[in-house]
């Protein structure tokens, strides 16, 4: 187990450094009073790489390195990646939308806490305050980030209806049609339900982890 432990600690540490840098970049741009679009365009490439790399977490779960469900990990990764790469990135106008910055801000704030907590927990040396942060800061950050994602998807709809990306029409020999614009509408409808499932799961995990006295912190 020592090798996988070292690998996981390294992976989580690398993500932690990356997300902290991204968060720093957003804060810097905000302090420098740059335009929304400038702040977004400077932070987005790094965040894009971090998000892409986090697909590894599905692999970790599938290999049993961590106790999470691979399907759950894949779905969460898919939700964020869809928002970042397929919705916001291609639409220039959204880069200057304040929701885009709220989204990146919530993501990077949450990850700057979560990954260090994972790294420390993997090494068995997680301080109580870090566990507290991990299981508390999601309470405002998660709904705020989700609302930002939904706002961006809704704002993207007219553009998606016009551009029709990733879409296939009938007739074709596979008897299949896919309209990305409709898919996003359905996703917007399902988002609150999916969000609530995760949120309530985290709240329950919180009362288990923070409710009992000195328990060693474990990954979810």
């Amino acid at each position, binding site marked *: 187990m020592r090798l996988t432990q070292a690998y996981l600690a390294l992976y989580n540490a690398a993500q932690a450094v990356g997300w902290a840098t991204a968060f720093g970049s957003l804060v810097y741009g905000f302090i420098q009073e740059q335009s929304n679009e400038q702040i977004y365009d400077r932070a987005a490439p790094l965040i894009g790489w971090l998000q892409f790399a986090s697909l590894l977490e599905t692999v970790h779960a599938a290999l049993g390195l961590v106790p999470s469900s691979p399907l759950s990990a894949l779905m969460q990764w898919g939700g964020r990646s869809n928002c970042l790469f397929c919705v916001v990135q291609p639409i220039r106008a959204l880069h200057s939308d304040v929701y885009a910055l709220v989204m990146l801000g919530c993501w990077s704030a949450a990850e700057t806490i979560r990954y260090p907590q994972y790294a420390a927990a993997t090494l068995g040396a997680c301080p109580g305050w870090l566990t507290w942060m991990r299981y508390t800061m999601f309470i405002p950050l998660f709904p705020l980030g989700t609302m930002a994602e939904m706002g961006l998807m809704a704002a993207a709809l007219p553009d998606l209806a016009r551009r029709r990306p990733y879409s296939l029409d*009938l*007739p*074709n*020999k*596979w*008897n*299949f*049609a896919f309209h990305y614009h409709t898919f996003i509408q359905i996703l917007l409808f399902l988002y609150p339900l999916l969000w609530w499932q995760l949120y309530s799961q985290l709240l329950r995990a919180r009362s288990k982890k923070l409710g009992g006295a000195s328990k060693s912190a474990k990954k979810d």
Partner: protein
Amino acid sequence: MKLEVVSRSGRVITTLDINPDATVGELKKKFQSYNRKYYVARQRFTLPVKPGETRGTVLSDDAKRIADYGVSDGGRVEFKDLGPQIGYSTVFFWEYFGPMVIYPLFFLFPKYLYPHISAQPSAHALVQQAACAYWVLHYAKRIVETFTIHKFGHATMPIANLFRNCAYYWGFAAYVSYFVNHPLYTAPNETVSKAALGLALLMQAGNLRSHIILSNLRAPGEKDYKIPRGFLFNLVTCANYTFEIWGWILYSIAVQSIPAFLFAAVGAGQMTQWAIAKHARLRKTFDGKDGRPKYPRRWIVFPPFL
């Protein structure tokens, strides 16, 4: 004897006075008279967790004496409310009735269900007609099996499952039917479709025969696991799933539609999960020790892959 009934957090709910020879079922009836809200199917009793265990032993057999679980006078049992329950056959009926009715809607009322398509063909292709008949027949078969063949291991399940299962079956029925019965449907090679649906019908027959074999494994009142034998079971543990998976693959080949393949894939995934668990359970139970037979070497669900 007196039993202390506690919640899983340790809070004492009540003390029940029951016959020392009472069964678990009688305990549950007694508990219901304490609180009418908790009908028998909703109650679950476990023994307190012993050192080394992660969970307490469940008092799962309603016919077994409580004393045989090691509970004595003054002992305590933990109560859990399983939430509102619904009968297995009720859930099965609704989850199969939906697809049986929803799929033909797209076939029968295209002008209403595809109002955005102005030019619609005057008749359906042969494969669309055959596929509709196959689909309806399949779900009718499932409903009949539910009430005549299947013997359920548990009587009830949590009511939330009704909505989840129906969402899955009804959702996919609409999704597949929408595309297969679409006015702009492109029919594949008719010979291939006929052959595929013909084979699919054979798979349904195989699935039916498998269900009958499974149903006959236990005599009324028996609760133990049995090794399925005969027909394809000699080669595959979950032969019933094998036929079912092949049935949907062949249906998808017949209609050549991606939603159909998706439905087949998701169903196959779920059945594979169940099959892996069942195979493991049978291998663990029939380990060849203490006079028990050894579970024979078999495929799990889908030769030559698994």
